[in-house]
């Protein structure tokens, strides 16, 4: 039986008296590719911020790799994070950015490069190590951020709208790369997105709408359960059924 790498239970969150998350519960299994799908403003980024401790948990519980988020030194140790907005220092080289991030994960400079040697080769970045980030195109910058998030060999990778602004090829290159890693059992992924074409039938899905989880499960099972043609129609059906979710 697979164990859960991430568990959210009855998580609610309020911003300035407005409840943006309402009793959210879902979990993701080890070595799975899970997608949190929802429209803009559904509460995806709030969940992401709670998982990464950018926001304090107000109610409910979050467990990562068996540790509660309050025990952040253990809970966050084995996760990798890719933010929606670019977070690389443009004035530094790829290598310098990676050194800095590795250090924040408690790794020496030598250990940092050693830990991502294969990743750099697989994503065609080993030639660009000494290039300034500002000279890289958007796709390469994103790849650097993906590689960076893998520095500490995370068990769970959290990505918040990681492909926003990229062309189709770059988007699917990144997705394919991560899916291959999941298939090899190297990590679990929580892919947060509003883009329906990024979801595959084999993925585990959690649909979020207006701060509530409407449905969780395998994509194909969810579509079949509601007797719809595809995911887009299923999503429309579910949000129509739950207009004030």
């Amino acid at each position: 039986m697979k164990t859960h790498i991430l568990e959210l239970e009855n998580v609610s969150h309020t911003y300035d008296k407005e409840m943006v998350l309402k009793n959210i519960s879902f979990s993701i299994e080890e070595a799975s590719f899970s997608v949190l799908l929802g429209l803009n403003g559904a509460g995806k980024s709030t969940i992401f911020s709670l998982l990464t401790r950018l926001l304090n948990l107000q109610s409910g519980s979050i467990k990562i790799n068996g540790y509660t988020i309050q025990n952040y030194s253990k809970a966050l140790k084995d996760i990798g994070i890719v933010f929606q907005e670019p977070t690389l220092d443009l004035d530094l080289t790829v290598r310098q950015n990676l050194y800095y991030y590795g250090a924040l994960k408690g790794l020496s400079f030598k250990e940092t490069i050693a830990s991502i040697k294969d990743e750099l080769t697989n994503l065609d970045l080993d030639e660009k190590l000494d290039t300034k980030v500002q000279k890289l195109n958007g796709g390469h910058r994103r790849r650097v951020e993906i590689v960076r998030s893998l520095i500490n060999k995370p068990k769970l990778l959290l990505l918040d709208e990681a492909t926003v602004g990229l062309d189709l090829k770059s988007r699917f290159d990144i997705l394919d790369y991560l899916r291959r890693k999941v298939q090899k059992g190297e990590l679990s992924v929580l892919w947060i997105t509003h883009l329906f074409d990024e979801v595959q039938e084999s993925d585990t899905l959690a649909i979020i709408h207006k701060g509530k989880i409407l449905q969780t499960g395998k994509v194909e099972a969810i579509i079949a359960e509601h007797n719809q043609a595809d995911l887009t129609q299923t999503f429309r059906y579910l949000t129509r059924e739950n207009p004030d979710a």
Partner: protein
Amino acid sequence: MRNYFYCAQGIIYKELLRFLKEKSRFFSALVRPLLWLFIFSAGFTSALGLAIIPPYESYITYETYIVPGLVGMILLFNGMQSSLTMIIDKEMGSMKILLTSYINRNFLLFCKMFATAIVSTIQAITFLIVAYLYGVELSITGVLLTIPVILFTSIILNAFALFISSVIKQLENFAAIMNFVIFPMFFLSSALYPLWKIKDSSLFLYTVCSFNPFTYIVESIRFTLYLKYDLSTFYIIFFYFIVALSLAFMGYKSKKVLKKS
């Protein structure tokens, strides 16, 4: 412990890289106090007569008097520059990288302040060397002993700056900080004139200066530079160190980070 060491190393490494890449920042940080030393003090030497006051044992030139204040100016402006960088980092998102590390957030913030303090200290020592070459009376022992004091007091100013960066919502508000924090902090201190002179003019201003942490920062640098010490100043400095760190740490508590970004 090993993890914490590498983490500190990485933060200092990045700050030093930024410092080396922004040479104009280094020179502009030096030009400001040097202008005061070469021009302002030349004009005021004859206007402001100075009595013998501790730590000095004889009459001194005005240039000699303002050097510790100008060292403080470097630390103050560098701290605020670092605060500006933090606001940009917050707007750009790179601040999140720092704050989502599994390593204790207060430790990360302290490393950030310490890294900025190292850069400030390099600039302050360079300024002292130029001041010495200009003819200001300084001893090598005094300058060497001042290094830890500069480092320590710089952390206090960086912590205040960090706190300010946590409460500023937009970069545009930074100009207001210049007017409402940096200038009052600098002018309402003993950096440019001894407190007894201010007391002669206005008891109210003197009282304000007496509560200004920058006054004690300048005085601690002044005393150490001339191989004297005033224990009460160091107690007060230590008190402000605790206050400033607490404010900085509170400013970056989890729930406050994202509201502004």
